């Protein structure tokens, strides 16, 4: 089925994300993942229902166009230093991502599903969430942490698509709006961090502790 292919693609992007060295590339992958998610309901054959098509269009517009443009703006201001700067090696990241995916598969066994739901769905969503979390805690650059947050939100969005026929348009719109405004505010803070510290390395942000 086409939906299974899409879910497999999302899991593949997770693994590619954790070994990516360039910030630009990581952003592109997270955006690609968002667009695949936006297309997923159409691949499930739900393109006849108007409110779902509207939802998909909104999701693709926000994740594929508005958010990348915010990232482009933030990246323009950061001239040099375009590597993600991981705390741990890429092979360790890959290993942790694999462990996370395995954990997600094991965890999903305990959760019953409605008949006819692809079995990979919940594991893929949890694995994407964990990948986002991994990126968030293991990367130094403030922008990469925002990419991690975006991937984490992608994982949650994938789960939400299980309920796509039920979900109210208002809630979906509110969630997308909050995601957009959240990344917008993070972009502003990153800009302030860059001017205050002359860098976007979050190791600088370690003055406050006990």
């Amino acid at each position: 089925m086409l939906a299974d292919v899409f879910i497999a693609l999302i899991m593949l992007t997770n693994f590619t994300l954790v070994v990516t060295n360039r910030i630009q590339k990581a952003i592109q992958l997270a955006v690609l993942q968002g667009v695949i998610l936006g297309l997923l309901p159409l691949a499930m054959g739900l393109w006849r229902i108007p409110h779902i098509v509207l939802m998909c269009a909104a999701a693709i517009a926000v994740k594929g166009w508005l958010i990348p443009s915010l990232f482009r703006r933030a990246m323009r201001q950061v001239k040099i230093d375009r590597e993600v700067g991981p705390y741990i090696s890429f092979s360790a990241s890959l290993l942790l991502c694999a462990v996370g995916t395995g954990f997600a598969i094991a965890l999903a066994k305990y959760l019953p599903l409605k008949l006819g739901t692809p079995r990979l769905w919940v594991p893929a969503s949890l694995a994407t969430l964990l990948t986002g979390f991994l990126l968030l805690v293991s990367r130094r650059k403030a922008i990469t942490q925002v990419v991690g947050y975006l991937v984490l939100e992608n994982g949650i969005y994938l789960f939400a698509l299980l309920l796509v026929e039920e979900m109210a348009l208002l809630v979906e719109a509110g969630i997308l709006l909050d995601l957009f405004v959240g990344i917008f505010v993070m972009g502003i803070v990153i800009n302030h961090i860059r001017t205050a510290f002359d860098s976007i390395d979050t190791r600088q942000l370690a003055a406050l502790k006990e």
Partner: protein
Amino acid sequence: MAWYLILLPLLAAGVAYRTESVSRRIQLLPLTAVLHLAGLVVALVLASLRGWDARGVWLGLDALGGWVLLVVSVLFALCAFYAPAYLALRPERDNRIFIVCFLCFLGMASLVAHARHPGLVWVAMETTTLTSAPLLYFNHNKHSLEAAWKYLIIGSVGIALALLGTFFLAYAAHMGDVNEPLQYSRLMLEAEKLSRPWLRAGFVLTLIGYGTKMGLAPLHTWKPDAYGETPGIVGALLAGGVTSCAFLALLRVYAVVAAAGEAAFAQELLIGFGLLSMAWALVLMIRQQDFKRLLAYSSVEHMGILVFGIGIGGVAARYALFHLAANALVKSALFMSAGNIHRCYASRQLPQVTGAIRRTPVSAWVFLLGFLAVTGMPPFAPFISEFYIASGSFAQSHPWLGALYLCLLGGIFLAMSDTVLKVVFGTPSPRRVRTPYADTPATTVPLVAALGLALILGLWLPGPLDTMLHSASTWVEGQP
């Protein structure tokens, strides 16, 4: 009425953004606070005459939401009347964004209180995070930037987990063929049909998510930095307002879990988080040199008391809701007096800040009495709630938990008293920094009023409020 309470602050925020005159812009804060509080009182009186309107799919006011919004609105009014004097002390900082975000926060708090749909509650909660982040950056220095970044990232991740928990809840309903519109009272009425594994997992995730916003240990790491680096007035709004909203969002989910007969599972988690938060706060309070961080850990402790009370259930749950008001009032007095002392000494660290009673007598007295109130001295309101939560845990045959809770309260009293007494009574340090700050009525009356309200609430709970608390706590225990 719901629309009035939500849109009035947002409209005022829009006006504040467009207003060029600084003094007029500042006056929007007390004006909006009074109009909001008046509107809310009218709504509550109408509700007590005609019954609660909780049937709307999206918006409606029930006793629980009304209670929390009343607490937030009173707290906002106290902050709003303090704000003009505070902002006058900081003429060098542009206050446009500050006032806009302050007002937006009130609008979003009204939305959290009125929202009937899990998704809408989440959207409003996330928006409170986004509107409070710029408030943390008011001082525009490296430390406040770090605090704002941590708050934004930790808060956003936490709240994202709460979103996943909300979807789990929706899937639990979907499995039981309960479909949209999923409003909370409907979920509670049909709770028997919900799928248990999804419901439990959803509760754990929402507890982690909204618990991060409340600042329950070990998810509180943003809190000391955020409260330490912001102006006292923002600390008051965060410690009494944002945390109350997050607690409300958590209680909404808890009520569904309780209605489904899974309360025992949830209560264990709540008691665990509650006692852990108190213990963690106690450890970090010992020898704490920074008095604003001390207050942040006190906030962690009181969030622990709130969830502990809910976890015990029965009388303790009702008094946990009462404690929400007690904590908000006393915390606002403490944070604003700490802000005054900070202004006067230009420092928050112990060796520099000693003997405040001579330099800022009123603020120092409020700080001292606030400390006594918050650690549970009679006759202030926190004493009543802390006492009934303890007696509730003995009555519900949890004697060991009750004893542990009392030991932690005692330890926290000792740990806090060390720092507070030095700040208030210690020998003034010889090398003191001269600052223009001196206590004036404008910077102290709101503090005294907050403490006075906490005193009144400790001596006398008006009948209508008592009725409201009763129906709110039956709602929390799973009977809509």
